[in-house]
């Protein structure tokens, strides 16, 4: 892919770089959209910035093994986003099968 002739020339890029460098301290373009900040690990569990699965050397009190996610119906907040009470016919857009753009897993390691 590196062999093909680029329609984006060095001159174009150099111009964009020069403009970008000079405006790097300017506010972000509107197209940048919004961002969600997470205030560090200190508030783990309080603002969704978990640490990831933790290890433990402790045991767990006995739980019920019988739960089956193929039979149990979700009873959390998802109901709110998935269906509308006044419109039971509400459906999510698009064809369910194969419609997900999976998370990119092909990012280079570093």
């Amino acid at each position, binding site marked *: 892919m*590196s062999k093909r002739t680029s329609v*984006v020339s060095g001159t174009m890029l150099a111009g964009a770089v020069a403009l*970008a460098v000079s405006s790097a301290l300017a506010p972000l373009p509107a197209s940048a959209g919004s961002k*969600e900040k997470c205030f560090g690990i200190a508030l783990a569990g309080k603002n969704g910035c978990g640490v990831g*699965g933790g290890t433990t050397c402790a045991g*767990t009190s006995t739980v019920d093994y019988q739960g089956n996610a193929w039979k149990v119906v979700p009873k959390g907040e998802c109901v709110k*986003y998935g269906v509308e009470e006044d419109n039971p016919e509400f459906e*999510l857009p698009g064809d369910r099968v194969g419609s997900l753009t*999976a998370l990119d897993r092909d990012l280079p390691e570093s």
Partner: protein
Amino acid sequence: MPSLAELQDGFAAAVRRPEPDPPRGITGRGDAGAGRRFGVYRNNHLAGLAGALEMTFPVVRKLVGEEFFRAAAMDYVRRHPPRSPVLLLYGERFGDLLDELPAAGRYPYLGDVARLEWSRIFALNARDTAPAEIRLLSGIPEPELPGTRLILHPSVRTLASRWPVLAVWQDCQPGGGRAKIDMERPERLLVVRPDTEVVTHRLDGGSYAFIRSLARGAALGEAAEHAMAEEPGLDLSAQLVLLFNYGTVAGIAPAAVNKIPPDQKGTPS
């Protein structure tokens, strides 16, 4: 008498078996059932790992409720037991399992919410490195710019969803729950941790194509083309500002040898 290795083969297999079936050669207290005692280890294994998933996916848990989450998590543990004692990143494919469950018919965004949560944990635990500044590009001679490859920050993840998963994620944070979310709005997201805080940005089509191209190893020129194909009239300098301001870039990849024209070899610069 079986060797220790054989004993552990049998014990490990019994811990993972779906039906309680303790190995031979163990006792509890007196005649009290060994099965109940062995069940403690089975439970610790299954429930302990489900608990680890609960730490990584608090929003999914909130969305589906405890009962469903634990059932799905235990199912995940049975199908994808961890291969490492480091559980920080355990659950990478939890979103895939959610996609397969019948619940996904009604709540198809659950898998992508899980992918967003895992991406944030990935970014949180990624290697620490200072993001590069955009001035880094100023020193590159014009003819070399299109072939320049950027090294993205080790924390970078991207996610494109048909659903507004960041909006849902935000609404599930403490203090949230009041937003009216238009579920017909797709989102393209960038997750990155330039310093100590994980940040999720919404991207437009051009920015997403640009960063995805760079992540796949495309040089600047080619990535810019992809972005412009996605969004004609794209402001290239704005893209560069965004890229660097978000802390997405960690450095410039060393130029490949075949990129250097023969007449410049050995020329001091």
